[in-house]
């Protein structure tokens, strides 16, 4: 089961200052969406509205065609996973009772899957959450997010506490479970490099505004990486916006923003320069750079 998400001129003020400044987008649902932005860009504010943790100051937000706020049909089907158990006071609970609570309140909870994930992430059921390491707490949150099988599942930087092997196990698990049980998955992160291959569409927020909402491949095609002999690469860079530059011996690699016409590409190939896709991270850094605002 998948739900669409639509926002029209969505605004949220927090203590008088705007956290979201009129956002418009539509997610058709049934995909893995990336929400990226710098710290304080409004990612968590936007996701909190989707999960009904707060009410929009103005504008419209629809989940599966309905206002999610205080909606008893929608709210149980939206699972927002944050890496913030400590703030919620849940740390006094034991792992087992936390999972039992989620099982009692999430209508699509899959207990067998939860048990398998507990084994995968080696979580001790009888320990208090407060005694768990940051990584294990993140794992517990992730288990709740995955096993809830909510039609809208949101991971708000919920996996940044995991070590690298656990993070890759999580990415594999998200993809495998999404394939088996398609739903709307939103992943917010600033570890863009690790997760960009999962995203079908990307939303980039900056200072409470939506900068970009595009298909990931279309976004990547906005730039190109050029790798080859340093002199040949330098000859090609004139008039282009360089996002990133690396030199190794006589080889240079640059990432440029903007279209490279066929002539330029032909010249590049002739000079032994290889053209490749741009990294999402480079585009993100470029688009949200302060001097660009």
């Amino acid at each position, binding site marked *: 089961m998948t739900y669409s998400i639509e926002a029209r001129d969505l605004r949220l003020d927090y203590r008088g200052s705007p*956290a979201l400044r009129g956002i418009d987008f539509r997610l058709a649902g049934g995909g893995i969406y990336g929400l990226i932005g710098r710290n304080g860009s409004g990612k*968590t504010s936007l996701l909190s509205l989707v*999960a*009904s*943790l707060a009410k929009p100051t103005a504008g419209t937000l629809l989940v599966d065609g309905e206002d999610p706020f205080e909606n008893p049909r929608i709210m149980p089907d939206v699972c*927002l996973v944050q890496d913030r158990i400590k703030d919620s006071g849940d740390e006094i609970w034991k792992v087992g009772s936390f999972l039992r609570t989620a099982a009692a*309140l999430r209508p699509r909870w899959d207990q067998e899957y939860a048990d398998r994930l507990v084994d995968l992430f080696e979580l001790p059921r009888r320990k208090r959450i407060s005694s768990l390491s940051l990584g294990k707490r993140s794992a517990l949150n992730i288990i709740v997010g995955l096993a809830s099988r909510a039609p809208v599942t949101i991971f*708000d930087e919920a996996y940044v506490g995991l070590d690298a092997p656990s993070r890759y196990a999580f990415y594999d698990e998200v993809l495998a479970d999404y394939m088996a049980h398609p739903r709307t998955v939103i992943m917010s992160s600033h570890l863009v490099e690790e997760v960009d291959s999962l995203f079908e569409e990307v939303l980039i927020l900056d200072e409470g505004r939506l900068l970009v909402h595009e298909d990931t491949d279309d976004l990547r095609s906005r730039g190109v990486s050029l790798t080859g002999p340093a002199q040949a690469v330098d000859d090609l860079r004139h008039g282009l916006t360089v996002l990133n530059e690396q030199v190794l011996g006589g080889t240079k690699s640059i990432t440029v923003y903007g279209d490279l016409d066929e002539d330029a590409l032909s010249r590049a190939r002739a000079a032994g320069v290889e053209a490749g896709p741009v990294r999402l991270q480079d585009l993100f850094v470029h688009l949200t750079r302060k001097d660009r605002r």
Partner: protein
Amino acid sequence: MTTTTRRSPALTVTRLVAPTMLWISALYLAIAIAVFTVIAYVELGLGERTDESTSHAELLANSSPRFFLGSLALIVTSTLLAHYLPMGVTRRQLFWAGTTLALGGAAVAAAVIAGLFLVEWFVLDGTGIPITYRTPHLFDGSTQVGTVFLEHFIALAAFMVLGWLIGSVFGRYGGWGGLGLLLPCLLLGLLPEALLGVGWVGQAYDALGIEPLPTAASVPLGIAAVAVMLLLNHRLMRDMPLRRPTS
């Protein structure tokens, strides 16, 4: 694949929270009863009697239980919102869970107190020590279990809902706003007892020569005052945001 079916989230939340509240309250009541039993034994059993009234069940009931339960209720809103809103439970469902917990907690405590009055009567019956009360009550004797329960249920419910309301006010309006609204909340919370004309308010009525309302009017009005506090809680909770750090 095994899936669970969610039945009545409000009741589920009540079921999840109630055991913790019951354990804490039971521990408190056990300590309070033990302390007051020792005081009663020293005063009455060992002949250390003074001219003071003899009911130690009344002494206990008029003092800490209402403040203890009121304090416990201070964290109802913050606890329910922080734990269960992210689990997909609506604020309205959490309000009903809070109402069940507050009124259920008051009912259990009132039942225990009514039982203590009865035990005290049973112990003192035949000893020649008459049971006398310090403050006015709706009941005339400890064996009027229903009336003892009703009076204490209304008083305890008022304090529990008051504690809950104060917690909601602070959650909604922050520290300074909460402080500003504290006095009106306290006055509202004391209103049921004032309407019933029992406890120290009843004592003050006696001293001032004020005639309390008849029971037929005071009980419904006292319950109505509790209901007003519940409604205010609902108004405060219905769109209260769960504030967390943003990124």
